[in-house]
């Protein structure tokens, strides 16, 4: 990494955002070379709001989530630069002990695959309240009551029976609900949802998202919703960050991303979504392939696929998020050439 990236641009969404990621760079040191999985990522989420992170596979969305919780295995992963400010504290500087008390209490996470995210050898109820029983003195019967309450809250029918079930006795949607119950048991301030609905079918997806937004109001938590589905993000998020090859390409309020995208990659993503109106609308795919993270160009990683790029300039100028309108950030050097 170049040494100048210490002067990172600070992006603020509100007076005091709950979580602020500033110039985060995470690398994986592999046998083939250094892979920058996150490069100079800056974004933030306000209290009680939802931040959507979209991007295709391998764009660094999940790495970002795991970096926030410091769950990446080191080695091979290494956070080489940046700050993750949670309520003003830099999580990257906290000792592991303190970090552990933040995990599962202030920040919790739900995962993509509801089939494997619950431990097959324990009953649902036991798993939901395990973290609570670790910090508070709760009797077994109180824990059971709490579990039933939480299962009821996440809309699982007949929770007093479900609480004694093992994970394999639940359907995928119900397991994801149980996982959510586990994640909100400690009333977290921030919920990281790493593609929470990808493994579910469409009708269940909708229910789970509605449930999450419902609980967000009840618990008063912020959500970072990672998805490769623009539709889901449009429905749920207040702000959206579009990621590509480990970097944030565009970052703005949801309406702005969908109505006045200012980055050619965002435009490409929007053009490749089918529309309901029908008519003579053709889907326009983005030409080419995502770049190999081992051989990124010095400049914009999207340069080879970009319709508006100036190959000379774009391939050689390091990109950085710039605020072009109030609260609307883009990494494109020529946002004025971008049209939806």
């Amino acid at each position, binding site marked *: 990494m170049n040494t100048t990236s210490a002067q990172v641009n600070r992006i603020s969404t509100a007076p005091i955002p709950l979580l602020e990621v500033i110039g985060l760079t995470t690398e994986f040191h592999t046998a083939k070379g250094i892979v920058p999985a996150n490069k100079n990522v800056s974004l933030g989420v306000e209290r009680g709001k939802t931040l959507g992170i979209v991007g295709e596979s391998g764009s660094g969305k999940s790495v970002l989530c795991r970096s926030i919780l410091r769950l990446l295995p080191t080695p091979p992963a290494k956070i080489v630069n940046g700050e993750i400010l949670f309520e003003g504290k830099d999580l990257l500087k906290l000792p592991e002990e303190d970090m552990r008390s933040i995990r599962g209490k202030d920040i919790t996470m739900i995962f993509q695959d509801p089939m494997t995210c619950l*431990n097959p050898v324990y009953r649902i109820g036991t798993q939901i309240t395990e973290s609570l029983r670790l910090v508070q003195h709760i009797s077994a019967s109180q824990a059971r009551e709490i579990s039933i309450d939480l299962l009821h809250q996440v809309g699982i029918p007949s929770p007093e029976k479900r609480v004694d079930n093992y994970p394999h006795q639940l*359907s995928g949607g119900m397991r994801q609900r149980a*996982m959510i119950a586990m994640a909100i048991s400690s009333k977290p301030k921030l919920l990281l949802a790493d593609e929470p609905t990808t493994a579910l079918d469409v009708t269940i997806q909708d229910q789970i998202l509605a449930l999450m937004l419902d609980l967000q109001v009840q618990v008063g938590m912020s959500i970072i919703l990672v998805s490769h589905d623009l539709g889901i993000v449009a429905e749920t998020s207040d702000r959206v960050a579009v990621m590509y090859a480990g970097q944030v390409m565009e970052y703005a309020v949801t309406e702005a991303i969908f109505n006045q995208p200012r980055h050619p990659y965002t435009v490409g993503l929007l053009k490749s979504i089918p529309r309901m109106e029908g008519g003579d609308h053709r889907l326009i795919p983005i030409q080419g392939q995502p770049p190999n993270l081992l051989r990124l160009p010095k400049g914009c990683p999207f340069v080879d696929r970009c319709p508006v790029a100036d190959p000379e300039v774009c391939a050689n100028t390091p990109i950085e998020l710039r605020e072009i309108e109030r609260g609307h950030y883009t990494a494109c050097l020529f946002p004025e050439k971008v049209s939806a």
Partner: protein
Amino acid sequence: MSGIEISELAVSQKRTSNALNRIRLWPFTLKLGILIVSMVILAGICAPLLTHYDPIKGDYNDALAPPSLQHPFGTDSYGRDLFARTLYAARLDLQIGLITTYFPFLLGLIVGAIGGYFGGWIDNVLMRVVDVAIAFPFMVLIIVIMVILGPGVQNMYIAIFLLGWTMYARLARAEMLVVREQEYIQAAKALGYGHFRIIFRHAVPNILTSSIIFSMSDLVLNILLASSISFLGLGVQPPTPEWGAIITEGRDFLLQAWWISTLPGIAIIITGLGFSFIGDGLARMLGQRNIQLV
């Protein structure tokens, strides 16, 4: 909503089903194995009730008597009743089998789980130790350790313990490498649990299956191993009855008195079969549960 109906059915079924019903669902081999092993255990415990002969004191007037109503297994060259010796030997042999299997089992599980979970240099160091222990011929190493420690049952336990854990460490590590990538382990980390809570409460129950199944055949092998060590004069000392030792004693009289070696040998075979059946049944039952989970 049919999922709920089915689950309610399952719940009500669970309520009405008693322990007996659940046992009925076990694989046949598991039931058979448990039956055989419990009979061997019972024979060992009830030995004084089943025979009034002393396993150690013999009657020289009655040496090398063939099987008869009086001596169902015949007598050996010292005139000791072999039926009594075989029954009493079951006590020692089961004890040897359990101790030489499950103490190494525990150590191997802990070492393998820790190595597999943390990976990196911890894993490297632990697995190289295992490699070194496995690289030597097993029997030779056991004999060397026994010679250093001196003969005796206790030292035999120590010698087998020092080497026996390595296989369990490898098994547990291999399983742990798979389990640690499962999302429920990631979720446990995301919930802020400590490493040791994650390893021993969340991961270990999921890596036990193959070790338990392996331990059943290991137990049989360990009984045979103990017999071989006794055969070399390093393990169980005469006149203590032990199946391997009795077989050794009968070797010199194999042509005149076949029963001395053969009948305790059959006892070993039956015990071995029993444990193997349990292992097979467990593999079936636990394997089935895994398939259900996927």
